[in-house]
């Protein structure tokens, strides 16, 4: 097999840290093979992916990155889809985004259309070419980026955490694409906490151990035996007061197409409800409407016995956005957690201990003085979760809270949510793009399909 890329004794240190993120990495990537890079959250998987793509700053690098011989392979094209697709999108419409790569390769405009449409159909993204990128869900944006790379026919394709953003249908489509690419001699590297859907494709597993060393094998989270508190329901919520009531709710999206309609449900104090649905079915939209960030086209929402108004809900409702980058804004993790507490009038004596407790529960106390903007996607997610948990609101909306977290971290977060639900009767509503995997934490399951939302 042709070796496409070699890393020889490669190490990398970020300029503001003393410890190397990657240490003495030796690896070879061969054409037509699929590799899966595993490791705990924040272990350096994305940094290694950036090294393969050649996007790391030269100052922090040592060792060698050797590409293929240009006489054999011409221009060596590496495609990389990052975990947060929003950092990579350039154009405002679907067609322009996919065509951007072709423009850079100087493909004639007349030939672009067919290639763009073929790439979009490969990833099963059925949207008009002028559809605004901003209106796509995170999963759809991820598919769009894969299409934008496939159209350039890369020799090495790197996907960072596809399972964190894609629903089962999307993963099945990506599986078929990767299988086809392997057959055509394209090398594939997956950075993935949950490689289950791709197991039959993976030829070799690598693991990063958290100290920057790479070894062969698959990293698995050492899960503690599941705490019985997670699976136990708080009980008694069936007689608890209704906190959230929805009647005949409808929302109309782009081009007057209804996202969902005739939605009716009640959520009671202390209930733990998961909202499932495939990418783009309107899970995030539902949470936004319930929190009062978006106005429904029809129907009524009553939350805490009032119309939803973000200003009035400030003390009572906490919201975790799907993309943590949109939520965090302070200079350090400590300041990030302190911000809501200060706004809610906590005394300066109580704030440090609450910050410490919440960070310890989330397992990120060592990051307290770091900038949240420089953390990995999974770590950012944990910081955002900690910042919405810290003020202990009565109700929490969490948009895909487990995306990008390894198994151990997912369990930690579930344990925290379960204990806060039990001890403080915190009502939880969270979304998931995998209807097949309902966490034991949930005692209610709303499913979105075909524009309808109903209990399962």
């Amino acid at each position, binding site marked *: 097999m042709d070796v496409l890329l070699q890393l020889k004794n490669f190490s990398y240190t970020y*300029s*503001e840290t003393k410890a190397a993120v990657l240490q003495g990495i030796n690896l070879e990537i061969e054409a037509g093979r699929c590799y899966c890079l595993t490791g705990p959250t924040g272990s350096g998987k994305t940094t290694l992916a950036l090294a393969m793509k050649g996007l790391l700053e030269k100052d922090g690098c040592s060792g060698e990155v050797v590409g293929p011989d240009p006489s054999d392979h011409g221009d060596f094209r590496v495609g990389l889809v990052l975990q947060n697709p929003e950092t990579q999108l350039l154009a405002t419409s679907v067609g322009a985004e996919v065509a951007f790569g072709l423009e850079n390769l100087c493909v004639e405009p007349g030939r672009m259309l067919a290639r763009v449409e073929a790439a979009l159909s490969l990833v099963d993204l059925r949207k008009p070419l002028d559809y605004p990128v901003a209106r796509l869900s995170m999963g759809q944006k991820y598919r769009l980026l894969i299409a934008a790379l496939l159209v350039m026919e890369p020799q090495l394709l790197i996907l960072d955490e596809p399972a964190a953003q894609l629903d089962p249908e999307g993963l099945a489509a990506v599986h078929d694409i990767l299988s086809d690419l392997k057959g055509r001699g394209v090398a594939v590297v997956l950075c993935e906490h949950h490689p289950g859907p791709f197991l039959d494709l993976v030829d070799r597993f690598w693991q990063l151990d958290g100290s920057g060393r790479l070894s062969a094998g698959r990293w698995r989270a050492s899960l503690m035996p599941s705490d019985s508190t997670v699976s136990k329901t708080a009980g008694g919520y069936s007689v608890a007061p209704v906190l959230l009531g929805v009647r005949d709710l409808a929302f109309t999206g782009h081009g007057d197409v209804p996202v969902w309609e005739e939605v009716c449900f009640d959520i009671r104090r202390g209930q733990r409800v998961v909202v499932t649905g495939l990418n783009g079915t309107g899970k995030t939209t539902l949470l936004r409407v319930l929190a009062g960030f978006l106005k429904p086209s029809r129907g009524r929402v009553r939350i805490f016995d009032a119309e939803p108004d973000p200003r009035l809900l400030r003390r009572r409702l906490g919201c975790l956005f799907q993309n943590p980058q949109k939520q965090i804004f*302070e*200079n*350090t993790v400590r300041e990030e957690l302190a911000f809501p507490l200060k706004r809610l009038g906590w005394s300066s004596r109580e704030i440090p201990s609450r910050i410490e407790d919440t960070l310890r529960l989330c397992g990120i106390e060592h990051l307290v003085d770091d*900038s*949240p*903007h*420089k953390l990995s996607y999974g770590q950012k997610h944990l910081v955002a979760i900690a910042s919405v948990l810290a003020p202990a609101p009565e109700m929490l909306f969490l948009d895909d809270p487990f995306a990008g977290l390894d198994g151990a971290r997912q369990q930690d977060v579930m344990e925290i949510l379960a204990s806060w639900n039990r001890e403080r009767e915190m009502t939880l509503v969270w979304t998931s793009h995998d209807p097949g995997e309902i966490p034991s934490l949930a005692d209610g399951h709303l499913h979105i399909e075909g524009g309808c939302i109903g209990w399962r």
Partner: protein
Amino acid sequence: MMKRLSARFCEKFRLPLKDALFLGFCAVFAVLTRVVLRLHLHISGHAMIIKVFFLMLARGSTPCLYGASFTALLAGTAAMFLGFAKAGPLIIVKYLVTGIVIDAGAFLLPMLFRSYVLCALVAGAASSTKFFTAYGINALVGMDPVVNLQRSLLEAAGAVVFGVAGGLMVPMVVRRLKAYDVIK
């Protein structure tokens, strides 16, 4: 020998594209903000708040030893063509002298952009150059030395107050830019 010296000189004064763009942005904003916020406050020295803020930001955001002076040169040239302050080409000197003081301050005080106190001191020193430039320009047009001294001192006092205010904003912005990994 000369080759080695020139190579060392080039390395020392090399300006990477990212830093050059940042300095350019600061220069443009220093001028644009003044154009957009043309405040006829009739308070002497109020323009110094913008000038000092952007010049100090330019130096604080790049490792370039002459960042503030270079930005001042760019901004001063633009200001001359836009006809600011009715000073003609002398406005370049006004900007440049302020920039040189900021660069000197940053060279002597490595922790400058982390400390509000040091930023206020350097901003005050940079703004006080207003006295010399004002005195020089007034002397060129033939103002009586006694009147000139009093007038220049008054102008410089206003400039120092506003300059210090501009300088105090810098550590906060530099810290935020570093947290977002925009600057190293």
